[in-house]
């Protein structure tokens, strides 16, 4: 089940003009197939969420995109460059998962150091401002909270002034307020037309902050499109209504209904075509009331598409 808004490059061919082009990407770790053939083209200016459960291959894909891991097969281009060249030229900035700060260096030193290593960095103060850590500049990294550390790492990723920002589970150690602050900072950055790819397993973040969602599972892309499209990929809406005198078999017989639950006169109908269902429902049961129609959330799509039962609560 794959829907695409962008035409992915055919394997072996790497699209020109793309911010990111992955073609036929594969990576094995011993017996484990971490990435089992990924084709993905991201256009400049897109904000893309790489969404999937833990172990789906998100981090491996990100590592290959950054040249930290060499693919077994396939090609990676970042703005037409090899990953290492993209890193060296400051085209790509990244926030990796876990660690990656020196406890005994201050925030300003850490960001300043990374800036000094790059060829055309933005001013350190600007990076600190954008990441919302200017007031922490003189603090040692070892004395930061989890959320503060993440924002400092965001500043580290920003300071090379990249065209593409890659974030691997950026909000994983943050509380709700920290997360909101982080995404505000991110949004301000993407408004300047930069391309962002972020890996996450928070559906809400993908839903709220990405233009495009790439769902990945067991090393493969299982859905790719706008939030609305991915949601539609599991199709359907849910109709809830109080239907006096109805029985489950009767309701299941209505047009467009795929699944019925009836409890104490209250029906929950999963529908492929909710418009047809509602028309027929009202014709058959004129005193049906409290009718509610909802579309399936991305969460439903996520569960349906990544469907490994023990992954979900």
């Amino acid at each position, binding site marked *: 089940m794959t829907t695409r808004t962008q035409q992915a490059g055919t394997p072996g061919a790497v699209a020109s003009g793309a911010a990111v082009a992955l073609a036929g990407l594969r990576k094995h770790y011993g017996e484990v197939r971490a990435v089992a053939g990924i084709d993905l083209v991201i256009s400049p200016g897109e904000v893309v969420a790489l969404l999937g459960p833990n172990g789906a291959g998100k981090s491996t894909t990100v590592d290959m995109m950054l040249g*930290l891991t060499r693919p077994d097969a396939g090609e990676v281009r970042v703005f037409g460059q090899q990953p290492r060249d993209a*890193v060296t030229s400051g085209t790509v900035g990244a926030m*990796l998962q876990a*660690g*990656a*700060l*020196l406890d005994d260096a201050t925030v300003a030193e850490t960001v*300043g150091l990374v800036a000094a290593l*790059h060829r055309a960095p933005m001013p350190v103060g600007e990076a600190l401002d954008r990441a919302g850590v200017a007031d922490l500049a003189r603090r040692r990294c070892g004395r930061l909270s989890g959320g503060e550390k993440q924002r400092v790492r965001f500043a580290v990723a920003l300071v090379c002034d990249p065209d593409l920002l890659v974030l691997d589970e950026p909000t994983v150690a943050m509380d709700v307020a920290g997360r909101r602050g982080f995404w505000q900072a991110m949004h301000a950055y993407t408004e300047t037309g930069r391309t962002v790819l972020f890996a996450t397993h928070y559906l809400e973040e993908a839903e709220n902050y990405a233009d495009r969602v790439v769902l990945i599972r067991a090393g493969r892309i299982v859905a790719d499109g706008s939030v609305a499209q991915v949601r539609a990929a599991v199709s359907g809406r849910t109709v809830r209504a109080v239907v006096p005198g109805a029985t489950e078999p009767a309701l299941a017989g209505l047009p467009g209904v795929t699944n019925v639950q009836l409890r104490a006169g209250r029906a929950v109908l999963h529908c492929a075509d909710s418009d047809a269902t509602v028309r027929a429902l009202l014709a058959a049961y004129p005193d049906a009331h409290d009718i509610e129609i909802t579309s399936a959330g991305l969460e439903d799509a996520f569960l349906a598409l990544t469907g490994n039962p023990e992954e979900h609560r």
Partner: protein
Amino acid sequence: MNIKYLALETRRVIRAPRFLIFTVGFPVVFYLLFSNLYGNQGGAAEQAATRAWIMAGMAAFGALTAAVSTGTRIATERGAGWQRQLRLTPLSGGAYLVTKALVGMLVSVGPLLLVCAVGAATGVRLDAAAWAQLVIGTWLGLLPFAVLGVLIGQLSTPDSVQPIGSATFMLLSIGGGLWFPPELMPTWLNRLAHVLPSFWYGGIGRDAVGHQGVTMQTVLVLGVWTVGLALVAARRYRADTARV
């Protein structure tokens, strides 16, 4: 080579309490302790000679500790994911290792000069040439140990690096005759000591206070050690990056 990177790395090392206490403080304390225990025997000339000898040993010990332990920080930084972060910058892995060795050389200046200053303040008298040989010669002789520190940092884990590093500089400094004269060693140990780079390294300072120059053999042995250790470190570095 990135100067700002070198400067930050150096600053990080020298402001760490552990560095100030163990690497700079200890050699000074030991010099004062030993020179008071053994430096009051015989006439004035003999006293001065003994103090000079202890000073040379402790200065070399402090500098060696500084050089080796700086490189061992590599293991900790790898464990913290910092190396991965650096790989997202134009800094090459080779430049990272070379910087670490250079930082080891730079921070060793601290204990080396401090022990010598305390020595001069407590009655050690040497002529200019001897001071120059003691300070500059000893410092240059540190090169293989700075490289050794890098190699230990590459080979060990964050958990194991501390004991491995400490054991290395303790054994090297004892075997190298920095704590007591090689002439007092049992014959077998004395023979073994000649294989160690620290024996020749310590010899630079010992010869300086004994009014002898640096022999060609010393330069040669330390040079061979440096090149050998650097080759192993480079090989290890290539293996590390190939595994990516």
